[in-house]
């Protein structure tokens, strides 16, 4: 058994080093392509799906050999490993979302919960699957928890708050408005799957892209929400309803006038969204102009410029 452990560690250490180096290389590559968001699905937390795979095989072998304790231990251990890895991965994705936003609620402690489940799974597998002494099993569990904490960290606990011009806390309002807008854009994107017209789909994709760009601007500076209220409450909502209605109706009724009207509406929506984006960008430029002017005046007053 000692020789086996030595062999395993001799294999694991270079493997972990290689995995670490590959991750760094991929990160560097990803930084070069940051202009293309969500091009590759995130691989965060996948390691914890792969490492416990032998436990599943062990459970199957224990079943075939009729070993009840090992079967139950390995099956429970693998179930907990899988649940923990799922929670941890979801927590990591939520944390990435939290880091990206300027205004956000504190995420549910999914990462912490996932780490605890993985520690529990390690302990149960060590105790019932491998028949280690309970103290050794507890040590395995605690070390796994420490490993998860050092590698992935625990969840952020504080919300990123935003106060409006009157000094009131507007975090919930901003988060809700952005979430609603996100739902609208997703509905538009989903409608493209139901509409079989390539030209209309292309227009819809452009509209969704524009709306997302506007949403990014709003996320970066939630003070713009007041300026974009009409966009969120009237244009985006209206566009979502019209697109969903067309996606539902056009399959049943084939009227060329309907297609023409829809095309015209889409052209108008696209123009309005572009105009809205320009307005937000211009307001940012104006804000910057004012800041530069204030700084120049201050510097002149101090006799520096």
């Amino acid at each position, binding site marked *: 058994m000692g020789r086996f452990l030595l062999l395993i560690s001799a294999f694991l250490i270079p493997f*972990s080093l290689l995995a670490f180096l590959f991750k760094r290389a991929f990160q560097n590559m990803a930084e070069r392509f940051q202009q293309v968001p969500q091009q590759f699905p995130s691989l965060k937390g996948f390691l914890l799906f792969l490492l416990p795979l032998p436990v599943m095989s*062990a459970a199957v072998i224990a079943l075939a*050999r*009729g070993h009840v304790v090992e079967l139950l231990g390995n099956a429970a251990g693998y179930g907990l490993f899988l649940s923990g890895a799922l929670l941890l991965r979801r927590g990591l994705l939520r944390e990435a979302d939290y880091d990206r936003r300027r205004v956000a609620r504190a995420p549910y402690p999914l990462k912490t919960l996932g780490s605890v489940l993985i520690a529990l799974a390690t302990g149960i*597998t060590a105790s019932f*699957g491998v028949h280690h002494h309970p103290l050794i099993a507890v040590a395995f569990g605690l070390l796994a928890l420490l*490993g998860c904490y050092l*590698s992935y960290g625990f969840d952020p606990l504080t919300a990123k708050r935003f106060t409006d011009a009157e000094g009131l806390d507007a975090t919930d309002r901003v988060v809700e408005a952005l979430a609603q807008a996100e739902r609208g854009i997703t509905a538009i994107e989903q409608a493209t799957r139901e509409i079989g017209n390539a030209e209309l789909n292309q227009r819809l994709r452009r509209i969704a892209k524009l709306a997302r760009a506007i949403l990014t601007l709003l996320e970066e500076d939630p003070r713009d929400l007041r300026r974009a209220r009409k966009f969120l409450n009237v244009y985006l909502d209206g566009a979502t309803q019209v697109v969903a209605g067309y996606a539902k109706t056009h399959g049943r009724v084939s009227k060329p006038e309907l297609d023409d009207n829809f095309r015209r509406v889409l052209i108008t929506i696209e123009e309005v969204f572009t105009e809205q984006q320009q307005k937000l960008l211009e307001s940012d430029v104006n804000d910057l102009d004012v800041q530069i002017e204030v700084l120049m005046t201050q510097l002149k007053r101090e006799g520096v410029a």
Partner: protein
Amino acid sequence: MSPVLRKFIGLLLIFATVGVVSCQALVTASCSSNAPVIHALPLR
């Protein structure tokens, strides 16, 4: 401790616990003797 070193130590710990326990569970299940039910079958 730098974040890179911290992550590396964390990964090593995960391999040393989750990875080792998983492999040990597989080896224990593979190398243990067969079920008593099979041994209990009457010999002809």
